[in-house]
């Protein structure tokens, strides 16, 4: 069970969180003008990084807020200094 640093509540146990996948996946501004490949990339393609991964968590059973964090997927260690609201 990971310890995850919620930027609002501080370090808390993983049981309180929901994982929300890769961070910074932006929805195309105008879907109707977006080509199939770009739309597919938005919906399905993920970096699946082996290394430092920018990801989103939601403190679902805590303050309920989403936030971003950096975690090394080869060690599961968070870069605590860099989690942001």
């Amino acid at each position, binding site marked *: *069970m*990971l*310890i995850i640093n919620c930027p609002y509540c501080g370090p808390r*146990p993983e049981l309180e969180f929901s994982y929300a996948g890769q961070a910074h996946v932006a929805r195309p501004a105008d879907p109707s003008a977006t080509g199939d490949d770009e739309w597919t990339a938005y919906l399905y393609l993920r970096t699946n990084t082996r290394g430092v991964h920018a990801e989103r968590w939601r403190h679902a059973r805590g303050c309920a807020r989403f936030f971003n964090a950096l975690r090394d997927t080869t060690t*599961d260690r968070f870069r605590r200094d860099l989690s942001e609201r």
Partner: protein
Amino acid sequence: MTGQRTTRGGRIDRTRPVSFTFDGRGYQGFAGDTLASALLAHGVRLFGRSFKYHRPRGLLAAGTEEPNALVTVSRDAARRTPNVQATQVEIYEGLVAESQNRWPGLGFDLNAVNSFLSPLLTSGFYYKTFMWPRFAWHRWYEPVIRAAAGPAHAPRLPDPDRYAQRFAHCDVLVIGAGPAGLAAALAAAATGARVILCDEQAEPGGSLLDEPAGTINERPAALWIDEALVKLGAQPNVTLLRRTTAFGYFPHNMVGLVECLTDHLATPAAAAPRERIWQVRAREVVLATGAIERPLVFPGNDRPGVMLASAARSYLHRFGVRVGSRIAVLAGCDEAYAAALDLHEAGPVSPSWPTSAMRRWARARRRHGLLVCRSLNAPPCWPRPVGGESAA
């Protein structure tokens, strides 16, 4: 090797005899005995049968590293626990234990016929055959192999016991309450840190329990343990968990512990949970798990009568049991000297010679240029090279 109880010594309580049964036969031990030590004291040498060839098996160790002496312990029809190490079972009044993986009995096991088939049953033999006809693996061969495998029976009735779980948080988790673990816990607790100290044994002390003559800071080992426990017990920031095994080290310093609460009691309270799982989150984890002796490799090293030298000391000093009257000491580390001396002091070590198999092994090793030592009967019981070879 036929064990016997010494007249004094050991950490057992000789004023409190405890009766139990093994394979239906009644025995008596003392409070503080394990099933292994109590049976050994009665001269029992045969504790089990090997997995494949059903060869006879005795005690190799005195602790949790015991590979042979697996037994089934039952409190009642629903509370049968298979595959328990006899070295880890604390005896209580009325304990019922049975040997496993034998038919009709431990002494005479018809399955030992497998031993004669050993040239056929080489490792991985099942990958090389049983392929014809196509359907036969699942219908014919596999059921026979499955029935033969598995050393014990799973319980047949629903388990009526309760089990508990809890989370815990600490600054320092110390795993193992031997000399290193106790020292680490004392040092951490002195700083005001919250400390959890756990040990799989009923009694903290670890290897010191096998070293009554040892000293720490010029204090006798037993006294040092007692003082350490008093000091730790007086501090509210310390939790000492006995009979508690750390079983897994999970991400971010989460350690799983299992605490045995009632298996050592003759009459546990009805509401008492049998075990408690602890999910401990520790800022720092100290692994003070000690060392276990590696067995030496020679033909027949798995037969009853061959035991780790450290185990022989443990039986002597913790349980007041001499593991035999004629003892050959053969070890790969300096533990051999201490073991030989201790065992000798507990009653003269008879002139002991390696068995013919060991002699053959020793000759073969010498041909390869390895140093071979044997224990001698004359005190000081100091090994010296065989055949004039130099120890240098």
